[in-house]
């Protein structure tokens, strides 16, 4: 029987898999490494699901132990199972396990097969720790390990320069946000004296509207914590790493850069929700960042030709949606979209991986007409796209509708409009992708597509089912159970479902799909014509708003220049100082050597010579003939006698 105390095994099991795989994988386990990872993940899932179920039914678990004492304040590590963590635990264990099963097929034959699964297991361990952690410090530790895994897995094909650079870029860019996060929770600790989530919630819940706490400090803490979200969830202006992160193996893109790790940023805001509710002046910033990100990324996705990059920008855009929801105080809506998005975006990435596996190309201009050759992949991909585009009754519709409702209900009509436009673009670019990939004529006849093995299509179908049904708990069919479930934890405003919002949402989705259908399947001349008609917009989108160029020109080059300057300083001034000291020492030593040789030694030699000279006189007395000695002694005696006689 599984009890809440078994929860500790959920992160520990994948960690064991990591240790075993990293040390014994390459030599002993080889292809069996995958089964170890999948098995531990499955067992973690089996342990986690009943506990999640109990939480869904209203239970609440927490346990901790004192890790260390900060002065008189104990810092406790432990797990916290509340509605939020239970929801994420549910999603991460299921999606994670399915993606690992898929990866077993996808990575087959890779020379670093066992290392891949070691890293994935470490990642799973960190992600699960993060989800069930009960305080910011443990959360941050797991967060950083995830960053490390992300780095290692993006750079998994490190022989390629582009992959190595992408991993560096991802690590450094997220590091900017992570510093903010670290400062944020330290500021929070200064302000309220605890890092524990549950304690923070009770402490802050009692203070809404009061001025007993330093709101300035809390606002700063909230802003800094949000920096972590911007970095990890690839929000504007730190979104640039996520598209490049697609250099990693596709299951990694699905697991880390679509479903779980990037969602951790949103999860962080959800975890700190009571804090954000207390400082309402921070929320508009959150909303603005989220909305800008959602729109910008969707706009870029319109013109990208790499199948994984389109999905990457789509991920950024959807994360922007979630952040917007958080900014609009929509904890339920944001978390709901996080869960549904994890399922259908993981599915989309795995589908894209399946396409790449089958065709060995990534550029959608070289695909086309793959539907017949890869039916399982195509059908599941289309289901996921429909979910993402927001076609009822698939999951994406319900969650996106909730976010739109938050914007509409709170009276932010500008945000509502931008989100609606983003939804339209989302439908458009997803179906552009589908029509170019799976329909029409095969454009490159060197590509010989084949369906992927069952090991890969089975997880696709599982996730497809998930993408369809996971929206039900938040839909009117279950009376918005999920939103009420979330509201048990932290209270937040709820809005009555609006038929207008639903109608708009469906309308833009259908419009986007229809437009894509017309432009890329029926009137294929339209697309280049539109691009020619609006060249500035096209270039802006195609070149990703010139963000990378901007960063290269205004950040990286000045840093390089600064680096060269400092190197010059180091080489000339610091090294010069050291070398100068050495030269001066050498010179002084020369002087001392001269003094030693000619004055000290000279004096000693002079003494020696003088003694030798004197000796050459006196030694003549020592003849070796004893009778001479006796004679001398006698003469000396006589001298004494004579002196004695004279004196007296």
């Amino acid at each position, binding site marked *: 029987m599984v009890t809440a105390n078994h929860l500790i095994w959920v992160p520990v099991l994948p960690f064991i898999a990591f240790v075993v795989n990293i040390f014994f994988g390459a030599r002993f386990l080889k292809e069996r490494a995958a089964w170890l990872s999948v098995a531990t993940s499955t067992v973690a899932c089996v342990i986690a699901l009943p506990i999640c179920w109990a939480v869904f039914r209203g239970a609440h678990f927490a346990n901790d132990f004192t890790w260390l004492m900060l002065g008189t304040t104990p810092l406790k590590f432990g797990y916290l199972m509340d509605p939020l963590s239970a929801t994420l635990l549910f999603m991460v264990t299921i999606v994670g396990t399915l993606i690992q099963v898929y990866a077993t097929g996808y990575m087959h034959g890779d020379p670093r097969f066992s290392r891949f699964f070691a890293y994935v297991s470490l990642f799973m361990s960190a992600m699960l720790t993060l989800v069930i952690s009960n305080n910011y410090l443990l959360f941050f530790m797991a967060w950083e390990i995830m960053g490390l895994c992300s780095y290692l897995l993006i750079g998994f094909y490190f022989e390629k320069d582009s992959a190595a650079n992408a991993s560096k870029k991802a690590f450094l860019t997220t590091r900017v946000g992570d510093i903010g996060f670290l400062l944020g929770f330290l500021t929070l600790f200064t302000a309220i004296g605890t890092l524990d989530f549950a304690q923070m919630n009770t402490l802050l819940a009692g203070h809404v509207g009061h001025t007993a706490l330093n709101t300035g400090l809390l606002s700063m803490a909230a802003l800094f914590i949000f920096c972590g979200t911007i970095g990890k969830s690839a929000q504007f202006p730190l979104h640039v790493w996520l598209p490049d992160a697609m250099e990693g193996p596709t299951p990694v893109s699905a697991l880390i850069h679509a479903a779980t790790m990037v969602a951790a940023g949103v999860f962080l805001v959800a975890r700190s929700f009571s804090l954000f509710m207390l400082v309402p002046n921070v929320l508009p910033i959150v909303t603005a960042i989220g909305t800008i990100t959602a729109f910008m990324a969707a706009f870029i996705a319109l013109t990208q030709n790499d199948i994984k990059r389109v999905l990457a920008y789509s991920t950024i855009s959807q994360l922007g949606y979630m952040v917007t929801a958080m900014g609009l105080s929509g904890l339920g809506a944001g978390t709901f979209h996080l869960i549904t998005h994890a399922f259908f975006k993981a599915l989309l990435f795995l589908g894209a991986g399946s396409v790449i596996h089958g065709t060995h190309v990534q550029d959608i201009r070289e695909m086309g007409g793959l539907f017949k050759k890869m039916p399982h992949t195509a059908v599941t991909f289309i289901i996921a796209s429909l979910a993402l585009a927001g076609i009822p009754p698939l999951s994406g519709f319900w969650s996106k509708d909730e976010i739109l409702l938050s914007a509409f209900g709170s009276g932010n009509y500008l945000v509502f409009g931008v989100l609606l436009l983003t939804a339209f673009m989302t439908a458009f670019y997803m179906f552009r992708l589908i029509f170019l990939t799976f329909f029409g004529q095969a454009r490159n006849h060197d590509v010989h597509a084949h369906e992927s093995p069952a090991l890969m299509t089975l997880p696709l179908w599982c996730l497809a089912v998930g993408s369809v049904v996971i929206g039900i708990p938040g839909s009117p069919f279950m009376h918005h159970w999920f939103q009420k479930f979330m509201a048990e934890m932290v209270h937040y405003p709820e809005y009555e479902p609006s038929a207008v919002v639903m109608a708009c949402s469906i309308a833009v989705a259908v419009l986007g799909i229809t437009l894509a259908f017309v432009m890329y399947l029926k009137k294929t001349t339209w697309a280049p014509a539109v691009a020619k008609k609006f060249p500035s917009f096209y270039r802006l989108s195609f070149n990703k708003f010139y963000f990378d160029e901007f960063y290269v020109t205004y950040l990286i080059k000045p840093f390089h220049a600064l680096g060269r300057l400092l190197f010059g300083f180091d080489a000339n001034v610091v090294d010069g100082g050291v070398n100068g000291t050495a030269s001066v020492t050498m010179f002084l030593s020369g002087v001392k050597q001269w003094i030693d040789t000619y004055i000290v030694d000279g004096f000693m030699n002079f003494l020696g010579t003088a003694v030798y000279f004197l000796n050459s006189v006196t*030694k*003549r007395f*020592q*003849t*070796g*003939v*004893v*009778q001479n000695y*006796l*004679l001398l002694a*006698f003469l000396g005696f006589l001298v004494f006698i004579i002196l004695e006689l004279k004196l007296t």
Partner: protein
Amino acid sequence: MIAIPLQHILIFSLLLFAIGLYGALVRRNIIGILISIELMVNASNINLIAFSKYTSLSPETGQIFALFVIALAATAAAVGLAIVLALYRIRKTVQADEVHLLKW
């Protein structure tokens, strides 16, 4: 009994000492030198006994002293002869001027 004055005895011992010194300085044979040294030792012994007899309250002091000196002279002669013997074995000579091992 005719008393011999102290001065006569002292002159006698002086002559004996001078003969010994002369021998020790000019004889080339080491054995001869040793014999000359014995002469000087005995001259000093005569002095000891003479002074003891004429000036001391207890004449035995000088006589005992003389006995010690004789014993010492004997041991010195023994050691000297041993050295001479060893020297002869190594250098095949007993001539003092032919041996100057202690030279600088």
